């Protein structure tokens, strides 16, 4: 088992190197430069933009810049943002709490909806409840988050005036008031993201449950006289959750990506909005770092999924 994990880890290293190389080259070849805003400003002499380019190494050949970035990364130096001149790791750390809070809550909400609804729908397939749940799930994942986000804003902020639509990291008040405000302002983004996730997950939980519920050992359990609840929870759900857990693990990086849109709509100062604004201002070091973090997440969660498989089914790790 440990050998298997080690093997997987060793494979992850060249993949990450490859990913970083591709990312870097694509970013370096992309048009635009971080000092473009200076170029149209008549007060800024072109020499200044040129001096900045030279100082930040933008005029070096790509391979040299890549090697420089790689060696700096190896030393734990993420570089600094051209636009804010702040260290990139500091910038990301500043944005991380909001992202984790919103995405974590959304994921939790998705699970809290998807598992009970999916399980219950599977126990009574093609019942009225199942039909409704299915329809809602289809509607849910057909509607993109940018649409539901704006719809929510129009309903709950503009028309009803219940919720704020600008997320602030700086909330006045302490103690219980602060907690309540934090919850209040997160309701809309979490709901938008969580419902979207819940929709696809419900479908998945339902079908995983249906696969298992028809198996012979379940019939056997029932025949032995076990109660419905016990059969579902202990025998069916446990086995059905194996692919669901894997799915969630593999979906995590995608959720970070999906949150980019939601973050932009609600002005959540998360990693997603950092990525967008950095791309718009051609702030290469930040774009590089954030996309690389996403890449690492993908590799990491793939690794976790692989390890989980290996643990669940030892035949996989022996291959």
């Amino acid at each position, binding site marked *: 088992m440990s050998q298997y994990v080690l093997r997987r880890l060793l494979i992850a290293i060249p993949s990450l190197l490859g990913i970083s190389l591709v990312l870097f080259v694509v970013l370096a070849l992309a048009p635009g430069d971080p000092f473009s805003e200076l170029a149209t400003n008549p*007060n800024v002499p072109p020499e200044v933009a040129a001096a900045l380019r030279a100082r930040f190494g933008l005029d070096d050949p790509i391979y040299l810049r890549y090697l420089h970035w790689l060696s700096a990364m190896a030393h734990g130096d993420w570089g600094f943002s051209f636009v804010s001149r702040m260290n990139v790791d500091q910038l990301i750390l500043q944005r991380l709490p909001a992202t984790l809070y919103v995405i974590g809550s959304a994921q939790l909400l998705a699970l809290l909806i998807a598992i009970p609804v999916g399980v219950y729908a599977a126990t009574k397939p093609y019942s009225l409840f199942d039909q409704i749940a299915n329809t809602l799930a289809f509607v849910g994942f057909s509607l993109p988050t940018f649409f539901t986000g704006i719809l929510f804003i129009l309903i709950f902020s503009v028309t009803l005036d219940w919720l704020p639509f600008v997320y602030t990291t700086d909330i006045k008040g302490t103690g219980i008031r602060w907690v309540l405000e934090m919850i209040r302002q997160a309701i809309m983004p979490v709901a938008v993201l969580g419902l979207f996730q819940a929709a696809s997950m419900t479908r998945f939980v339902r079908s995983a449950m249906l696969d298992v519920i028809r198996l012979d050992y379940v019939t056997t359990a029932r025949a032995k006289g076990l109660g419905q609840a016990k059969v579902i929870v202990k025998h069916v759900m446990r086995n059905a959750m194996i692919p669901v857990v894997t799915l969630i693990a593999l979906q995590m990086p995608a959720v970070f990506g999906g949150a980019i849109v939601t973050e932009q709509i609600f002005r959540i100062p998360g990693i997603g909005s950092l990525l967008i604004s950095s791309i718009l201002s051609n702030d290469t070091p930040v774009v590089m770092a954030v996309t690389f973090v996403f890449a690492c997440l993908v590799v990491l969660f793939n690794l976790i999924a692989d390890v989980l498989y290996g643990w669940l089914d030892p035949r996989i790790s022996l291959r």
Partner: protein
Amino acid sequence: MLDKELRSMIGDVKDGRMDRRAFIQRLAAVGLTAPAAYQILAFGGVAMAEGPSVYKPTKRGGGGSLKLLWWQGPTLLNPHFATGTKDQDGSRLFYEPLACWDPDGNMKLVLATEIPSTQNGLLAADGKSVTWKLKPGVKWHDGKPFTADDVVFTWEYIIDPATAAVTVATYRDITVEKVDDLTVRLSFKKPTPFWADAFVGATGQILPKHLFAEFKGSKSREAPANLAPVGTGPYKFVEFKPGDLIRGVINPDYHMANRPHFDTIEMKGGGDAVSAARAVIQTGEYDFGWNIQVEDDVLLRLEKGGKGKTIYAVGGDTEFIALNFTDPTTEVDGERSSMKTKHPLFSDPAVRKALSLLVDRESIKKAIYGRAGRTTANFLNGPEKFVSKNTSWEFSVEKASKILDDAGWKPGADGIREKDGKKLKIVYQTSINGPRQKTQAIVKQACQKAGIDVELKSVVASVFFSSDVANPDTYAKFYADIEMFQIPMSQPDPAQHMRRYHSSNVATKENKWQGTNFPRWVNKEYDATIDAADGEMDPVKRVALYIKANDLLFQDTVFIPAQHRLKVEATANTLRPVISGWANETDNLFDWYREE
């Protein structure tokens, strides 16, 4: 006539027959009011005074919190590294200049005690030096005194090439010396009519020497104060998250009486202009929204029964269509739009004139800019006194067609005009941006009616405005026949703005397209006019020179102004912000208050 009128009025003020306010009002009446109107008086030998203040509160603080929404949040807080006005705006909450510009373009004192003039002796009559007296007793937020050393240091810091300060153009040709602890003298190499540039407004923010002394030059990025400013301003720094949030609290030791009004200040970044307008005007979550570039229809809808409104400030920003005087399709020595070529169509002045007649500025205003735009024939639209009255525009497909007919451009079989085998087909490029694409459509339609075929091209803004030498789609390379955008006019003086089109500034491969004269228009008379204006100390003659420069651009149809754009801001109904078209939005922040 202009010359005479101004001179007699200056005389009146001098002899006490007219007071200063009346002078400014008179200038306004004849379309001449100006930020540098006070400078006119100064050189006319009249001492200057500040414009009247609108500030009402009678005590410091008590205004609660002020919540500002900047849809592009400041990303750094050192004004001399600013990559856009957003960064200057953020820094300006904490740092201050010696003086700034009020909504009418009058000078307003901040850290200085007196507006320099020839009468009080602070302004040299030859225009080669200016002396500033600093307010005594001003303290930095950390308690250290503010002195002339800080002013001199800020200059040293900026002109060090290794610092790579973006404000260096303002400071590199001057010398700053300390006269005593509360007096500094700025010396210019040559007579400088616009002396109120250094240490004034957004680019004039003064840094504390004691915190930046170690971080001059190549170590400039490492200064801790880059992220945690210590200034002299109305608000003290609390927290900064780049692109997201700036927080400040009231400075109880602020040097202006009864100011500031608000106890805390917050500047939130991110999102887009429409939702920023909504958060201020419709839901009232925020007090003030910056730079609301939203179609007027949308704003009018939001304003119905809303909690806020839009306000407008007049500056000099002009959305224009520039004509290429070189040939973008022929390559000479590896360079398109080379100075060795002539534009095959635009070398005929009739074509340029016709094109100008086909830009329907009234429709553009009605359909796109609404209250935020004004129609104009001029490239130079402000300050008022520099605005030419000799020009006019009109929209007429018939006249355009007639001009083209007369010049021998006859419609071919496909309806497109041609002459000597050359077809009137042009490529019209701009950056991707809603209003610009709509303007393109309006112009294209009119051109088609007159037999000109227009191919529209739009380039992503980050590419179009970049200085990327390898990219063929930048505005400076101008590989198209006409292109449209706007160059912000950031100073209440046209010198820098107009110098861009001097023939020595032509953008070519040789200067890596860093030259600012992208139409590649060369006119000896224009060059001479600009050169003369640069050193002209007589304000009246100088005004005439810039008006002449504008008229030369007009006569040659170098630019077709599409719209004179105003600044648009969203504000809560109770807030009384002070916004100048000649300054950054936060420049007069000390005068903002809330009226219940």
